[in-house]
C-alpha cells in the first residue's frame, strides 16, 4: 500500500518510493512502530500548517461566500441575504465575455507554456552536466527575485511604438508591430509569468524518471523521438500535466498582464473584480466573480488531476 500511494504521488515522491522499497527489504529500521503513534506524529507535523490554512484561507473563503449575498447602500456594505449580486453578474454581458476570454487565454497560455517548456526542460534534465544544470535552474529562479509588476512595467519599454523592439524593426525596414494593449500583450505577460515555473516543474518531473527505463528503450532499439514520446512523456505525465495546470491557474487569475500589457482590452475576470470594487464599492458582486473563478479552477484542476493520475494508474 505504501509503495502504491507513493508512486501515485507523482515524480517528487519517486525518491520516497525507492526509500520505502529499501525499507521494505530491511524492516528492522523503524518498521515496528504502532500505527497510532505514526498518525499522531503526522497530525503534530501537519497541524500548524493546517491551522494556518484554516485561519487564512478557509475562514476568508467562507466570508467571501457570505458576502455574495450582502447588499451595498450608499457605498456601504450591509449584511443581507439577497441573490441580487448573483443575478446582476450572471445577467451581465461583460461578465460572460470576460469569462470566455479569460478561460481561453489561460488555456492558450497553459498549452503554449507546456509545449515551449518541454524542450528546455528535456535539455536541462538529460543533456547537461550537474554543474551547468544547477546554474540553469538557478537562472530560472532569478525572475522571481523581482516583483512581477516591476517586470511587466519594464516590458512596456520594449513593446511601445518607439520602444526597443520597434526601433530595431525600423532599422531593418520592418514594423511597427503593436503588442501593447492587445491580447498578444496579455499573452506575453502570461508567458513571462508562467514559463520559468513550468520549465522548473517539468525539469523536476523529467529528472525523477528512472534512467534505466531510458537506457532500456535505447537498448531495445528505440530512437530518440520515440523514446521521448513512448517512455519519457508517459513516465513524467503527472508532472507535465501539473506544470500545465499551474500555468492555467496563474494565468487565469493574473491581474497585472491584462491590465498593463493588455490595456484591459478586453478585461479579464480579475480586472472585472477590481472594476466592481472600484466603481461602486461592489464587494458583493466582486465576490461573485471571485467565487466563479475559484469554482472554475477547482473544476479544471480536478479534471486535469483525474486525467494525470488516471492515466498513470492505467499504465502502472
Amino acid at each position: 500500500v505504501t509503495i502504491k500511494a507513493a508512486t501515485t504521488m507523482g515524480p517528487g515522491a519517486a525518491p520516497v518510493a525507492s526509500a520505502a522499497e529499501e525499507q521494505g527489504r530491511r524492516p528492522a529500521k523503524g518498521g515496528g512502530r504502532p500505527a497510532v503513534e505514526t498518525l499522531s506524529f503526522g497530525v503534530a507535523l501537519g497541524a500548524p500548517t493546517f491551522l494556518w490554512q484554516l485561519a487564512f484561507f478557509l475562514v476568508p473563503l467562507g466570508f467571501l461566500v457570505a458576502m455574495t449575498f450582502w447588499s451595498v447602500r450608499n457605498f456601504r456594505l450591509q449584511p443581507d441575504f439577497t441573490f441580487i449580486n448573483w443575478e446582476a453578474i450572471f445577467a451581465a454581458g461583460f461578465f460572460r465575455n470576460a469569462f470566455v476570454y479569460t478561460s481561453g487565454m489561460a488555456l492558450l497560455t497553459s498549452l503554449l507554456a507546456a509545449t515551449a517548456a518541454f524542450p528546455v526542460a528535456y535539455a536541462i534534465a538529460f543533456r547537461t552536466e550537474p554543474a551547468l544544470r544547477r546554474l540553469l535552474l538557478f537562472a530560472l529562479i532569478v525572475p522571481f527575485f523581482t516583483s512581477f509588476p516591476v517586470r511587466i512595467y519594464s516590458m512596456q519599454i520594449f513593446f511601445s511604438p518607439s520602444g526597443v523592439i520597434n526601433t530595431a524593426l525600423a532599422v531593418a525596414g520592418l514594423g511597427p508591430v503593436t503588442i501593447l494593449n492587445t491580447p498578444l500583450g496579455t499573452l506575453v505577460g502570461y508567458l513571462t509569468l508562467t514559463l520559468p515555473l513550468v520549465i522548473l516543474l517539468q525539469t523536476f518531473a523529467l529528472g525523477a524518471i528512472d534512467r534505466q527505463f531510458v537506457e532500456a528503450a535505447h537498448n531495445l532499439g528505440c530512437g530518440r523521438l520515440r523514446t521521448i514520446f513512448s517512455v519519457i512523456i508517459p513516465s513524467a505525465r503527472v508532472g507535465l500535466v501539473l506544470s500545465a495546470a499551474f500555468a492555467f491557474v496563474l494565468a487565469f487569475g493574473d491581474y497585472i498582464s491584462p491590465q498593463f500589457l493588455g490595456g484591459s482590452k478586453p478585461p479579464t475576470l480579475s480586472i472585472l473584480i477590481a472594476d466592481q470594487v472600484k466603481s461602486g464599492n461592489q464587494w458583493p458582486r466582486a465576490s461573485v466573480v471571485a467565487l466563479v473563478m475559484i469554482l472554475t479552477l477547482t473544476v479544471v484542476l480536478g479534471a486535469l488531476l483525474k486525467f494525470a493520475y488516471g492515466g498513470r494508474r492505467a499504465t502502472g
Partner: protein
Amino acid sequence: MRNPPIFDPRGLLRPSRRQLLQGAGALAGASAFGLGSAAGAQDNVLNLLSWPGHADPAFVKPFEDQYGVKVVAKEYVGGEPMLALMNQSPPGSFDVVLADAEYIGMLQEGGFIDEMNPADYPLTDYWPEFQKFPLHWKNNKLYSVMIRFGYLGLAYRTDLLKADDVKSYKVLWDAKTKGKVGFFDWYLPSMGCLSLHDGNKPPFDIDNAAFEKLKKTLFSLRPQAAGFYSMADMFGMLTNGTAGIIPGIGDWVVLLLQKNGVPVAATVPDEGGIQWTESMSVVSSSTKKDLAKKFIQYASSPEGQFRSARLPAYWASIPNKKGWEKMIADAPQDAKTLRHTFDAPNVMTEYKQGKIFIRQTPVQQDIAAWNDAWSEFKST
C-alpha cells in the same frame, strides 16, 4: 540505481546562510524601530484623504514646518473609491478630505464632513465664478473649499493630430485615430465628454432616451479603442504613442508631459468641456479639526495655491487670484503655461464663453447604470 539529485537548493544558500540570517535580523530590528517611531508620531500627523500627490513636500513642506506636523495622505483614484474609503474607515482616520466637487453633496448627506465658516477662508480673493461654487454649498452653508480645478476635453499627440483636427469630438471616430483612442478607465469624465458630443447640455443631467443614445455613441467607439488606462498609465501611453488621443482628460495630464518634451496638447472642443475640481473639507470624525482648518487655510492661501498648482504629480489651475499674482511674480513661465495671466486670454476665457460644464454624478440614472455601460463597453 538511485537517480542523482537534480537540484539541491541548499547548495545555493550554503555560502551565504550566515549573511542571510544576519540580514533577517537587521530587517526585523529595522521594522520594530519603524513601527515604534510611527506610533509615537500620531499626534503630529494630519491625515489627508486625497488624489495622488497632494502630500508632496513641494506643496506641504511650508505647512509642516510652520506647525511642526507631518501630512500623511491616503491616496485614491476616482470619487467612488473615495466614498468607499470614507464609508469603511474607522472614525478619526482622516482629518481632511480632498474630493471632487460632485461628491461633496454625498459626503455632506452621509454626515462625513463639517459645515465651514466662509470667513475662515480667502474666498473673496477667488475668481467670482468660484466664490459661491454651487456644489460646495447646501442650504446656504459651505461644506468645501476649492483648491484646484481644470478642464477635460481632448488630450492628443501633436505629431498625430493638428489643432484643427481636434475642434470637435468627432475626431475620435476619424480614420487617423483608429486604434489610437485611449481611455481613462473611469466612466464619469469619459462618458461626460461623449455626452457633450451628443449635444447634451448639461452632459450629466440627461433623460433615459439620451442615455440610450449615449451608450450607442460609446459602443461605436470600440473599434477605435487603444486601451483603458489607470491614471499613471495614461502618462506612459501618451508618451510612448500607444495612445494618440484620450477623451475626458486635459491639462492635468498634458502639462507635465509637455515639460518633458512629449509632443502633446489638450483642448476643449467646440461642443464644450467638463470642469473638474478638487476641494477640501474638514472630516466630521476628525479629532484635530483646528489643524484641519489650518491646513485648508494654507491650501487656499496664495502660497499654498501657488505650490498646489504645480504639484509634481499633476498640474492644475487655481481659483485664488492672489495665487495667480504670486505665480506671475515668482514663476512667470509657469503662469504662461497654465494660462494664469491677466493680460491675455487665460484659463477663465472658456469659462466665460459658457463652454465649460461642471462635472456631476449622473442625475437621472444611477451611478451603477453608467458604470455598467462602461464595463460593457470595455468588454465588447
